[in-house]
């Protein structure tokens, strides 16, 4: 019985290759498009998240608060309230802190022989490498000695190096001119990938003392990066910094604090809400593709069965029982949807990998739930619309079915 059923299914599908092929194609495209859409979305989401991670791990950033004079509030970060001493105090008195890096940053025009660019100059200390997850590619970062002596040395980000000297050129020992003052290049950082507006690759690092003496001309810092030893101590560290700075700045009311503390988790949660919106967008696109694919499958199945009503009538007339006719059409629908589904998953997989291959910034990730969803929906649509009309046709009297045009 079962071999009969399988044989009939096989013959019936292989006997009409165009019809079966088109049905399978509809299913393949439906499934593949959903899988590809979702995996591209997932990949985009992951790359946004890893970009945020690359800013630094367990990072807390202390920024100056807004300055206000005669009741006119300036923007946050505009005040000059944080100093190197604040940073030293944090490092000295708070446990669970791995690195503290005050920084002074501003954009300047930088020139070399023949080239120039406008980029971020970051005056900082060696802890910056730890706090911001930066690694050296070439040469070395400036030492504490060089910071103390306000040495005129600079470390280039890889993009800044490319802009000033050309890709792959070793600039160590060369001179760059920032704000009409010559700095000697001592190192190049490893490329890290963009992370928003402040691209660590497109920056030039100088000792913080040199930045203060030669460039900004004052004692205030733009912000202080603090790296906690681990994720769990971040909240505690943040609170301690808050207390310490309130004491140091002699502020009793926490609401009037002249600084802000930003936690990397805040940034991540903001970004998560962005990627959440992104996910909703992609899900709706996937949903629409699924709907369109489903309607395609439904059409194909309905046409097929209608076209075959006479065949159903004949089978009934020669005495094939209704249940076997039902089973055969069910088996055909299952075979078509599963065949199509399998090809669809493979095609979706290939397409997602092709996207990752050609768009290097995006590594598409195939999600199992998308595969299951796409497969499940198209299989149920295919089976319902392949089986239900066939069931109706099999319930017809054979005379009616035979006369059906």
């Amino acid at each position, binding site marked *: *019985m079962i*071999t*009969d*059923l399988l044989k*009939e299914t096989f*013959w019936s599908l292989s*006997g*009409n290759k165009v019809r079966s092929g088109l049905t399978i194609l509809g299913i393949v495209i439906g499934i593949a498009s959903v899988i590809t859409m979702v995996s591209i979305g997932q990949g985009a989401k992951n790359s946004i998240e890893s970009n945020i991670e690359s800013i630094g791990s367990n990072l807390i950033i202390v920024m100056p608060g807004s300055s206000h004079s005669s009741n006119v509030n300036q923007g946050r970060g505009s005040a000059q309230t944080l100093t190197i001493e604040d940073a030293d105090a944090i490092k000295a008195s708070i446990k669970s802190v791995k690195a503290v890096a005050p920084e002074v940053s501003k954009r300047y025009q930088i020139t070399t022989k023949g080239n120039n660019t406008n980029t971020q100059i970051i005056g900082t200390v060696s802890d910056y490498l730890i706090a911001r997850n930066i690694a050296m590619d070439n040469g070395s970062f400036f030492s504490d000695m060089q910071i103390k002596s306000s040495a005129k040395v600079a470390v280039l980000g890889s993009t800044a190096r490319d802009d000033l000297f050309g890709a792959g050129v070793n600039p160590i020992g060369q001179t760059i001119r920032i704000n009409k003052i010559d700095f000697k290049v001592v190192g190049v950082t490893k490329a890290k990938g963009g992370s928003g507006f402040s691209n660590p690759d497109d920056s030039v690092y100088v000792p913080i003392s040199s930045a203060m003496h030669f460039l900004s001309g004052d004692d205030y810092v733009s912000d202080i990066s603090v790296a906690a030893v681990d994720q769990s101590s971040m909240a505690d560290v943040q609170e301690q910094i808050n207390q310490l700075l309130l004491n140091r700045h002699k502020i009793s009311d926490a609401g009037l604090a002249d600084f802000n503390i930003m936690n990397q988790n805040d940034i991540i949660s903001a970004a998560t809400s962005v990627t959440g919106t992104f996910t909703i967008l992609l899900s709706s696109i996937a949903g629409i593709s699924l709907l369109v694919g489903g309607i395609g499958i439904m059409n194909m199945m309905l046409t097929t069965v209608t076209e075959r009503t*006479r*065949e159903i*009538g*004949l*089978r*009934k*007339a*020669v*005495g*094939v*029982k*209704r*249940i*076997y006719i039902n089973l055969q059409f069910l088996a055909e629908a299952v075979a078509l949807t599963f065949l199509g589904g399998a090809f669809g998953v493979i095609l979706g997989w290939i397409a997602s990998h092709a996207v990752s291959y050609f768009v290097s910034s995006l590594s598409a990730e195939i999600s199992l739930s998308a595969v299951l969803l796409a497969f499940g929906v198209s299989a149920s649509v295919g089976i319902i619309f392949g089986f239900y009309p066939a069931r109706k046709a099999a319930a017809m*009297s*054979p*005379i009616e079915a*035979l006369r059906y045009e």
Partner: protein
Amino acid sequence: MIKCENIKKIYKNGDVETIALKGVSFHIEEGEFVAIIGPSGSGKSTLMHILGALDVPSEGEYILDGKKVSKMNDDELSQLRKSKIGFVFQSFNLLPRTTALRNVMLPLLYSGIPAKEREIKARKALKYAGMEENKFLNLSNQLSGGQMQRVAIARSLINDPAIILADEPTGNLDTKTSQVVMKTFQELNAKGHTIILITHEEEIADYANRVISIRDGVIEKDITKKK
């Protein structure tokens, strides 16, 4: 073998009732070759559907080979058609894009008979129906009208049915092929098969030994030829 007692068939379409058969009674014995003849609208197709267990009468009794058909349900009718009746249709009704051999094997589906045996039976039936052996594996759409009807006849024979029911079997064939097909039926009859032929053509009905004429849902004439 076949007993029809006062068979009536009434079709209802909304409030309109159409009486297709107004009480038809006759017997057919084993080995007969009967033609049921009548113009369109006479009720002969309705009678054929009832004889072929494709439909049940509204009133009256139909007994085939000792079995009361009138009260059967869908699956019982299927079983009966499978074991007792071979159909030959006007439009052949072969499975499209399917070999002659597989078409003939269709009624053996789900019968539990091994595949080898099915093929032997089907080949035998095809030969019996006068099909050339080199056409056995041709697809149904590559066959001529006469060949298709032979395949259909072979299919009707495969289960060794009590009766062969032919509904206008020559309706789609030219005169010469019609003659060949009708000769085939005569040969089958000579070998002992009971054949019921439904037609509206006198000359086709002439091939049979007994002619039942139907008009307006009643039997008009029932003439048995002397052999």
